């Protein structure tokens, strides 16, 4: 009986660990936005497989989630695109809404995700996506 209880604790603990935070490696991830901040500052996803990312905006203002290399972010810092919706790595999330995007990251490495609306990056809307060997 005690062994069974121990096993249940171990199994439950594993589920808790897998469900917490954004650092668990999975083919899906959720990133919440609250008070102009990414709640999950770091997210780990596997390379080479489609990854579904759910973006939940809890704020009454619009935000963006743009993931990519330094060049991508530099372009968006001075860009003028009013809305993102066709490129999986560039998503506009209206107030109080959620968006789901599916991306296949080909190579392991770290990528930043940033909201490039005026002043938002400076306010701290930056996170890191760790792409690891699948």
């Amino acid at each position, binding site marked *: 009986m005690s062994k069974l209880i121990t096993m249940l604790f171990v199994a439950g603990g594993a589920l808790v660990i897998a469900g917490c935070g954004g650092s668990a490696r999975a083919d899906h991830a959720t990133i919440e936005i609250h*008070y*102009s901040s990414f709640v999950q500052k770091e997210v780990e996803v596997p390379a080479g497989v489609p990854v579904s990312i759910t973006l939940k905006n809890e704020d*009454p203002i619009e935000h*963006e989630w743009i993931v990519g290399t330094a060049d991508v972010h530099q372009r968006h810092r001075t860009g003028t695109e009013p809305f*993102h919706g066709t490129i999986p790595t560039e998503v506009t999330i209206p*107030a109080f809404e959620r968006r789901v995007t599916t991306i296949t990251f080909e190579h392991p490495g770290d990528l930043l995700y940033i909201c490039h*609306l005026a002043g938002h990056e400076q306010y701290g809307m930056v996170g890191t996506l760790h792409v690891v060997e699948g």
Partner: protein
Amino acid sequence: MRPLITTVPILAAVVAAAVLHDSGSAEACAGLIGSNGAVNLGRTTTLAAYHDGVEHYVTAFQFQGGGGEFGTLIPLPGVPTNVERGGGWTLQRLQLETSIVPLSDSAGRASAAGGGASEILKTRIDALDITVLEGGGPDVAVWAEEHGFRLSPDAPEVLDFYAARSPIFLAALFDGAAAAERGQQIGDGTPVHITIPTSNPWVPLRILGLGKQAEDRIDADVFLLTDSKPAPLPQPGAKMALAYSQAASETLLTDLRSDENSAWVPESAWLTKLAINSPTSDLKFDLAVDTSGKNKPSQVAAGLVALPRTGGPVASGDAFGESVAWALGAIASIAILALLVRRRTRASRES
């Protein structure tokens, strides 16, 4: 009718003026964010007075150039009954009074989105379109976005901070084109007088940092005109120095009373000047003042006690056991949320 409106026996007034770069002027400021995201140092002079349970709030919206339209959102402690053109030189006169008198020796004591924001008053004064709103922080934010304002990233948290105490905001849209047609020049101000029955006046300070970077400094002058020597909260210190504290002169009060729509100015009062010099990151509070003699300014009114995301105005004897800040002459309201007005075209928005 809100409770306690008629129970406030004191006469109090507050002038809040935030000044950037020129602490000697009578101008208050708030960061106005332009449609390109740049921060324009728009200056606004504000006066709030409290008498017989009615707050009289006077502020001057000044155009700083840059083109386009700019908006300001002001948290209010209650629902206004009137919004009209204010006196033309009241704030300057107060600044003059405190600039030429030495420091007194008496220093030191002296919501989740609901049903949407309701528009409870609309008026136009010169080139300003003014709307008084009632709603939670998210409600007001949505309204602002829908009416062409672009909120800075700190706005969601700051709006919640204020809406938890009072769900009343005044949105002012400055129409640059209309101002030009009227012959207004850059720097010209439009004084606005807001009459607000309330039992809970307070002076918003945190709002002065809206849209600013954490390291940006906020220099502000806050004037209190109260029945008696006030007890402020937070206590004056390095970031909020007591610069003036003594009985207001008859000459000053007479002058103020002679300005447009200023008959409410009391016959006698205590004048206090607090000079704020703080980085934005440290200015997370408002100013509460107790003039009841109990020396117990409300921590709730000062924004030092966390409140639920949604909530109404703070009332006397509230659940927090605070003494009401009715002493506060305060008033408040003021706070100038800097927002930016964005045309729905979003043409100038960053990607």
